Each structure stands twice: as structure tokens, then as C-alpha cells.
């Protein structure tokens, strides 16, 4: 994966955004978490197409890097990466959120299709990821654990319980990425819990980097590669400033597109926004 060019990954990002819209639209009245998926596309694409060491043909390969999407409601960015890297056949896209589908509205553990753990109840994925990183150390394995968390998700107590414990255990093999899109469910993150996240993660004992624009692929890859290659024996946190709903004109930064159903007109607009960007 490590040899892919930025141009190639950029194209993947475009296709992934299109996948997100297609699957979310297929969900119809069931709705989808569009905003949270779109802010995290470059983060997830950087991991799956550049930074992580993995083999879609061998999802159980013991040495694979692990990815945990703790902000599980953004499953569409995760699913689109799994689809575009070959863990999930494209034919399943139309089953998103449908009766008996394994593509539920939050990830459900399914190693065969690259889904390492179930998530969706905020905070828990991160705690589990910390345990997975510790296990790698206990077993003297060299793979890394990458974990995507939300900025609203950092309201949860379990995040800080796990963060302190990860630092205590010197989990240098753990890289968390904070999708700092500034919006949570009920409003702006700064209105709901206005805290200095970088300072808090540092205070918890983490090695922290801030990416000015987490929707800029070059910046994102550079920050993740630096953390991956870091020899600092602390858990690593990449705070990525992103835009919720990135790529769709009427969703960007909006408080209304956390989760909802998309109608035909909105779908057409979304598709044309994505086409115009290509």
C-alpha cells in the first residue's frame, strides 16, 4: 500500500465520497450519517491506501495493522475504504442498512470483510483499541493500531480513562486520529464542551500533532507517516482539523447533516458537487 501516489489516493478519495453518497442515498428514509463520514475521508484513505500495512486478500494476516473506527456512526467512510481496497465487494453497497445486511448503520465485527471490532456506542472503540495495542506489545508483535475518534466523542469519560492508561503503558504503537470537524450531534463542539483538546491530550501523556487541514491529503499523510515512524514511546494523537460534510456544498460545516435522509434533489446536487470537484 505504501507505494501509492498522492494522485492515486486523491482519486480514491473522490470515489469514496461518491460511495458514501450512493450508499447513504440507498438507505432512503432510514437516513445516513453523511457529515461524519465525509469529514473523515482523507483520514481513512490515507490509512488504507498509504500508511497502514495490510492485505485485503488476507484479512486475517496476523501482522496487519489494525484500524478501529471508534466514531462508528461514520461507518460510511470506513465501508467505502473497505470497498475500494477490496475487502467488501461493490455488490454489497446496495444492501447498506437493508434487512439482514452486514453493513449496518454502525460497524459490526466481521474480520472477513476487514471490520476489526464493533463500534457505535461512543468511546468504547477507543478503549478497545488501547487494549489491542497493549496486546501487540505483550505478544512482541510489530503491527500498529490506528483509531479514529470524534471531537464530540472526547466528551466521554471512557476516552480519558483509556487515554491515561495508554500513556501509562507507553503505547507507542497506537496512533489515534481525532476528526476535529467542530460539530457534534446537537450543535457546535465549541458550544457544547469548549475545551482545548490538544492541551488535554498532552496533559494525559500523549504525543500530539495538529494537522491544519485534515481534508488535505498531503498534510494528512505527512502527519500520519511521521507518527508511524516516530520512536517516541508514547501513544500518538493526530488532531486533524476537518470540515463536517466535506465535499458537498450544502453539507459543509452544517449542523443539519449529522444524520438524516437524503432526497432526490439533494442527491443530484451532491453528485454534481462531486463531479465538479473532479
Amino acid at each position, binding site marked *: 500500500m505504501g507505494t501509492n501516489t498522492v494522485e492515486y489516493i486523491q482519486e480514491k478519495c473522490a470515489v469514496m465520497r461518491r460511495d458514501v453518497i450512493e450508499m447513504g442515498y440507498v438507505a432512503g428514509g432510514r437516513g445516513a450519517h453523511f457529515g461524519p463520514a465525509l469529514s473523515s475521508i482523507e483520514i481513512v484513505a490515507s490509512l488504507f491506501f498509504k500508511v497502514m500495512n495490510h492485505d485485503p486478500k488476507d484479512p486475517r494476516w496476523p501482522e496487519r495493522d489494525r484500524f478501529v473506527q471508534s466514531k462508528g456512526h461514520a461507518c460510511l467512510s470506513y465501508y467505502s475504504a473497505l470497498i475500494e481496497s477490496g475487502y467488501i465487494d461493490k455488490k454489497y453497497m446496495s444492501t447498506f442498512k*437493508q434487512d439482514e445486511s452486514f453493513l449496518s*448503520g454502525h460497524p459490526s465485527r466481521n474480520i472477513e470483510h476487514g471490520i476489526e471490532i464493533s463500534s457505535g456506542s461512543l*468511546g468504547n472503540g477507543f478503549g478497545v483499541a488501547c487494549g489491542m495495542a497493549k496486546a501487540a506489545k505483550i505478544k512482541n508483535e510489530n503491527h500498529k493500531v490506528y483509531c479514529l475518534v470524534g471531537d464530540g466523542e472526547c466528551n466521554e469519560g471512557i476516552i480519558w480513562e483509556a487515554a491515561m492508561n495508554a500513556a501509562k503503558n507507553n503505547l507507542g504503537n497506537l496512533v489515534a486520529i481525532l476528526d476535529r470537524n467542530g460539530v457534534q450531534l*446537537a450543535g457546535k463542539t465549541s458550544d*457544547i464542551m469548549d475545551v482545548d483538546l490538544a492541551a488535554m491530550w498532552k496533559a494525559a501523556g500523549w504525543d500530539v500533532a495538529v494537522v491544519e487541514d485534515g481534508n488535505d491529503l498531503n498534510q494528512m499523510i505527512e502527519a500520519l507517516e511521521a507518527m508511524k515512524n516516530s520512536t517516541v514511546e508514547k501513544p500518538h494523537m493526530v488532531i486533524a482539523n476537518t470540515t463536517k460534510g466535506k465535499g458537498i456544498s450544502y453539507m459543509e460545516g452544517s449542523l443539519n447533516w449529522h444524520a438524516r435522509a437524503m432526497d432526490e434533489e439533494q442527491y443530484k446536487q451532491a453528485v454534481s458537487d462531486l463531479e465538479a470537484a473532479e
Partner: protein
Amino acid sequence: MSNIPLDKLQDWSKQGHRTVMGDSLVMLAAEKPEMVTVTADLTPTARLVDFQEKYPDRFFDVGIAEQNLIDFSAGLAVEGLIPYAVDMAAIVPMRPAEQMRMALGYMNLNAKVISIEAGVRFGPLGNTHYGMDDIAVTRAIPNFTVMSPSDPLSIYKTIFAIAEHDGPVYVRLTGGPGFPIMYPEDFDFQIGKAVEYKEGSQVALISTGSMLGPAAEAAGTLEAKGISTRVVDMHTIKPLDTDMLDKVFAENRLIVTVEEHNCIGGLGSAVAEYKAGVEGAPRQVMASLGDEFKKIGDYKFKLKQSGLTAEDIAALAEANL
């Protein structure tokens, strides 16, 4: 508390339980100055936007922090306020169960916890979002009253009734947009007192929450086949209305409990626990979500999957009579 006209009930039925709760809280706030609402980043989801706008000084969002939702509410209750903590049943009570036991149950504080979307109406979102175990968890906490109203008017009445009850209450809300009006007119609603929704001498269908609709429909099917069927709306699961159960035990031959909850620890368990000590009580079968993480699907699909449609309930009763 006021009389709710039919057109309001029809609107509520169309909107679903969240709107009934949100509107009722606003109405209650006008009458109870010490009442406040607390939530954990669910303001629009739980239809609390109106409340927040009308009573900004009596509305608190603790962020996505359900344990603190309970402890913060407990602190308010210690000082005499009446907090209504609102969240979703998949997360509360499970995540802050210990806070609910220690801070609310143990100290018998006058705080109310209301969870929206209990059961499996969040079908496509998957198992992390099903509230299948909330009755079990809260029922096992001493001092807690546990309620599950069945329709728009009974939800409204619950919100008001618990304000007058001094102690911790957990309310699970079920019934999405389009849930039926079971009580078109004012009726006698008291905490701990089940409603005999329909009389009948052979089968007794005892339901809670949204399952009253399918249970009443199933009763119609059974009656058409000549099977006399009683329907009981057990809107309060704790304390259980044992007077009503004594009557059922004496007069009915088969009990079917119907609930959108795990078969362990819910209404069926509560009835069975009481029944175990009553000599000669009738047989009981349970319609429930079972004890399993099942595949996802739409609400209708999920109910069918667990045998919770009217046809399934009627068939279960008939097969066991």
C-alpha cells in the same frame, strides 16, 4: 395537566414518542418551576429544541457523557430540583447503570430518567442502538419505579405523573411515528396500576409499551376464533400491579406477556417471578426480543423477526392454549 384533544393526540401519533415527550416536558415546565431537563448531546434527536428555547435556564446539555448525565442530575435532585434526564435506551441505563444505582436508587433521589427509542425501532442502526435490556437493569435497582407507557396520551400522563412521585423513576419510550392511539379519551392513569384494556376469560395478553397495539389486535383475532381474550396494559413494570395479576391468575387459563425487550429481566420475568409464589397460577409464555444479537433491519422486519406482530402473538396464544 390538561385534557388533550383528539387532534393533538393524532398529531402526536403521527410524530412518534419523541415529540410527545418533548412537548409534554414543555407543558410540565410551565406548571413545575423546579423541574429541569438534562441531556447528553441529544437535543434535536430527543425533540428538546423547544424546551431549550423556551427554558434556556432550565436546560442543560452535559455533552456526550451519559455517566455524568446521571450524576449531574443527582446533584440537582439533592438540592431540590426535579431533573428529567433524557437519553436513548441503548445507552442509558446500560452505561450509567452504576450511577443510577448509587446516586439515584441508593439515595432515593427525586430524579427522572427517560430513554427514547427503547426496543428495536432503531433497526437499521444495528445492535449498538437497540434498547433490549433497560427494564432488566433498572428493575434490579431498589427504589426505582420503572414505566413503559403505550401511546401518546399515556406518555403525556406518565411525564406528569412521575413529577408528583417522590423518588427515582425510569421511563422507557417506544412507538415511532405512526404509533397508534390506544387511548383517544381521558382515562384513569396511576403509577403502579395496570389498565384492563379489554376483558376476557381464557387468554390474558399482558403487554407493555408499544406492544399494546399488536396485543389488542391479536385479541381481536383470537376473539374471532372464539377465544375469549383479556388485554392488560402493564405500563408500570415496577412496582408490579399484583392485584391485577391475582385477578388474571384466578380468571385466565393462559398468560402471554408481550414486550419489546430481552426475554430475561423484563415484563415477562417480572410476571413470572410473582407467579412463582402463587399456587395454581396459569401457564405463561413470553413474546419478546429473545436473548440474542440478531441481524439488522427495518422496525417491521425486526418485530417479525422476533415474533412480535399481532399475528405472531395470536398464533403463540392459540398454540399454547
